[in-house]
């Protein structure tokens, strides 16, 4: 059934609403699947890699959802569930990286505040659906279709609530700019800012259409903006409104990026926070580079080898240290256990230095070509290893280290792990 959904969606004789319902059901099933998988990996925490963010976020969401939404507010939990699935990869938006960042930023919320403060999360959730819950239900469903429309620069609210689909569905719907739900929506609520989702590009002359029709045909770059009830309809104020909505959407996004901004409303305060945060990040970079300038590196291994993708699949069993080193460098290492490494690696440094140029050259060449080199690397460095510490127990410890590092259970404690 899980895989059945994309096929169902592709058959065009389903109506729009049926598709939405089917999608929602599918998402719920996915959610339940993920729920079991990710339940105990909550502690992977905020500061780990990006997929770790996803897990942490899901977990935090789950906890807060369970805590506060247990009262049976099904709409909110709907929203939460759909939000959880946002990290499903492959959403081809114009902010692809930002989408992932969003995950990371959301991870700040629950993990930074602890799971007790589910209220914060719910505030964040309710912020995304600023309409009363009864309306929100219809809107969530009504907006599922909109996702296919304006994928590139969606409004933030819409992105939070609605980024459910996987890439196939998005890519499929993206080609049609269907405005069916637009009409539905405008009848539901007045001050609904979801219209901004349609406003990717505008032609000023044509945008203010009171009677925009539903069209199944692919439209060229026109965005039809419907004027809301009781508001001015000339093109200037419409354009102005669109611009304002874009800005507020970006401000909301920034609000998620910058930690500790949930309580601040208003552009001025937000801008102050953002400025402070950027300044502090820049200062941190300076401080860290100063620190790097004063510290004497004793590891003399060749860095070029670290990201040799081709090396990894062939090397893990024979030569775990290099691979492990690389992985650890990029994912905060549990460096309490790191010391035994360094001697080994420095011992291997010479051999690796010899091979380094070859490896660096071979790195971009396809895998089969690099096999002879890797085996050369293996044997030469392996002998180096054996000179220093030929113990199987130590290898086992290395394997443990691998597992530990990559289940991410240690990574919560950011940096100053005291030994």
């Amino acid at each position: 059934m899980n895989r059945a959904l994309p096929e169902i969606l592709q058959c065009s004789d389903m109506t729009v609403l049926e598709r939405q319902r089917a999608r929602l059901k599918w998402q719920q099933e996915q959610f339940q699947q993920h729920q079991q998988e990710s339940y105990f990996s909550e502690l992977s925490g905020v500061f780990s890699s990006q997929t770790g963010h996803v897990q942490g976020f899901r977990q935090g969401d789950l906890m807060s959802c369970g805590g506060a939404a247990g009262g049976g507010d099904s709409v909110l939990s709907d929203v939460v569930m759909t939000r959880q699935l946002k990290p499903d990869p492959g959403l081809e938006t114009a902010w692809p990286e930002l989408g992932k960042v969003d995950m990371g930023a959301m991870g700040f919320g629950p993990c930074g505040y602890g799971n007790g403060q589910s209220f914060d999360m719910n505030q964040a959730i309710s912020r995304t659906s600023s309409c009363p819950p009864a309306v929100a239900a219809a809107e969530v469903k009504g907006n599922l279709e909109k996702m296919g429309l304006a994928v590139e620069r969606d409004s933030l609210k819409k992105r939070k609530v609605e980024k459910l689909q996987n890439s196939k569905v998005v890519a499929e719907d993206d080609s049609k700019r269907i405005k069916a739900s637009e009409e539905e929506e405008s009848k539901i609520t007045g001050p609904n800012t979801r219209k901004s989702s349609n406003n990717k590009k505008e032609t000023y002359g044509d945008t203010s259409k009171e009677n925009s029709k539903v069209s199944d045909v692919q439209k060229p770059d026109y965005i039809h903006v419907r004027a809301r009830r009781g508001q001015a309809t000339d093109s200037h104020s419409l354009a102005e409104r669109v611009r304002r909505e874009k800005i507020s959407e970006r401000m909301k996004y920034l609000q998620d990026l910058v930690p500790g901004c949930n309580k601040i409303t208003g552009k001025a305060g937000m801008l102050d926070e953002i400025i402070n945060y950027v300044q502090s990040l820049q200062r941190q970079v300076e401080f860290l580079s100063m620190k790097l300038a004063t510290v004497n590196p004793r590891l003399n291994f060749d860095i070029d080898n670290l990201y040799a993708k081709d090396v990894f699949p062939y090397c893990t069993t024979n030569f775990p240290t290099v691979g492990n080193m690389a992985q650890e460098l990029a994912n905060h290492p549990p460096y309490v256990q790191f010391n035994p490494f360094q001697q080994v690696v420095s011992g291997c440094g010479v051999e690796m230095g010899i091979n380094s140029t070859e490896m660096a050259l071979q790195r971009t060449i396809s895998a089969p070509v690099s096999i002879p080199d890797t085996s050369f690397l293996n044997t030469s460095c392996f002998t180096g290893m054996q000179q220093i510490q030929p113990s199987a127990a130590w290898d086992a410890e290395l394997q443990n280290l691998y597992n530990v590092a990559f289940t991410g259970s240690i990574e919560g404690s950011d940096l100053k792990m005291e030994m």
Partner: protein
Amino acid sequence: MDLHNLNPSSLKSRFTTRFLRALTEINARKPIASSSSPREIFQRYRRIKDAADTSMAYSVRSRRTWSKATLWRLRTPSHRRRLASFGRRSSLNKTRTTTTASHRGAVVVQITSRGGGLGVQLEELRELVPGGEAMDLCNLLDETAHYIKCLTTQVQVMRTIANLYSLE
């Protein structure tokens, strides 16, 4: 999460690769002696910081305004830079500012606040985000978001490396 899940094409890994390469090159060129003068240390610091910024800017796959501006800033000498930025600023602020030139070619730009008194902060933000001088608010916020994300990645990676190196 399996062992090879380190996404080799993610921003983090691209940045890490480049930065480590630059670092080893810097270290190889002038190894740290225990008796370095503060001036030498300062020079190293500048080089490392520039390397970090450059490698970050290169690792950005979609060419962003701030990344181009960072690279440009690190490449052109400062006198040429000042002239160019004068042109850039005045073209943006033509409609709402008066530019007054005061002694020795330094240009002071006064921004008359137009949209709700946000002028001062906008100006600050423009200064902080590289390449932010010639952008309107909407794009500026966009750039800021991307810039913040890249900065956090940079800080994470550099912190990890610094801890690694300082283990002794």
